[in-house]
C-alpha cells in the first residue's frame, strides 16, 4: 500500500474582503497610527533642509545669508512649524514605544514601563539643552 498520499495542486480560493484605501480614516486609533507613520516625511524634510544649509555653508557667507533669508519666508515658517509638530509626535511616540520593544526583567519582575521610557526623555532633554547651549554660544 502507498504510504504517501498524493496531493493535488488545487488550492481553494482564499476568502479576503477588500479593504478600502481609506481604512485609516474611520477610527481615531487608526488615524493616529497613520499620522505616526507619516512623521517619517517630516524627518526626511529636516534632512533635506540640513543638506541645503550645508550646501550654503560650503558656498560661502553670501549663500548662507541667502539661505537664512529664505527660512524667514512665510511658507518656510509654516512648513517648519508643521514639521516640528510631526517630529515631536515622532519623538513622543518613539519613546513611549520603547517599553513595548524592550521588555526587561529584574529578578523575575518586569521593569515598569515608566522606568524604561523615562531615561529616554531625560536623554532627550539633556541632549536638546546641550545642542542649544552650543548653538547659542555657550553664554
Amino acid at each position, binding site marked *: 500500500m502507498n504510504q504517501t498520499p498524493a496531493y493535488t495542486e488545487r488550492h481553494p480560493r482564499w476568502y479576503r474582503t477588500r*479593504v478600502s*484605501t481609506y481604512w*485609516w480614516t474611520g477610527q481615531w486609533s487608526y488615524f493616529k497610527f*497613520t499620522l505616526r*507613520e*507619516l*512623521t*517619517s*516625511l517630516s*524627518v*526626511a524634510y*529636516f*534632512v*533635506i*533642509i*540640513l*543638506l541645503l*544649509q*550645508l*550646501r550654503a*555653508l*560650503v558656498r*560661502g*557667507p553670501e549663500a*548662507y*545669508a541667502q539661505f*537664512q533669508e529664505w*527660512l*524667514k519666508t512665510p511658507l*518656510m*515658517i509654516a*512648513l*517648519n*512649524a508643521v*514639521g*516640528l509638530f510631526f*517630529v*515631536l509626535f*515622532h*519623538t513622543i511616540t*518613539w*519613546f513611549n514605544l520603547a517599553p513595548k520593544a524592550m521588555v526587561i526583567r529584574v529578578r523575575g519582575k518586569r521593569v515598569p514601563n515608566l522606568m524604561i521610557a523615562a531615561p*529616554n526623555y531625560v*536623554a*532627550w532633554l539633556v*541632549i*536638546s539643552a546641550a*545642542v*542649544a547651549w*552650543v*548653538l*547659542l*554660544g555657550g553664554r
Partner: protein
Amino acid sequence: MGKRSNEPFLWALFSSGGVVAALLIPVLLFLYGLAFPLGWLEAPSYQSTLALVRHPLTRLVLFVLCSLPLFHWAHRFRFTLYDGLQIKHLNEVINVLCYGGAIIGTALGGYLLWNIP
C-alpha cells in the same frame, strides 16, 4: 530559496535612525526653523557656524544626522505606502526610490561635510 533576508539589517537602520531623529531633530528644527528666522533667539554667525562644523565631532554628528534618519524615513515610508495606499505591486519601484533616496542623501551629506571650507 535559501536567500537570507536583509530585513533585520534594514530594521536596525530604521530603529537607530528613529533614535537619532527623536533625540536631535526637534531642538534643531525649533531653533533653525522657528526661533532664529522669527528673531526669538540670535542665530550663530556664518563664521562661528563654520568654526563649529569644522570640528571633527560636529562633522561626525552631522553626517550621522544626514544618513540614519533618511534610512528611518525610507523604511517607514515604504510601509506607509504599502499599507496606506495598498500599492504592494509597486514594491520594487518603491524600494529603489526610498532606499536610493537615503543612499543619495548620505552621499550628499558626506560630500558636503568633506568640502567644508
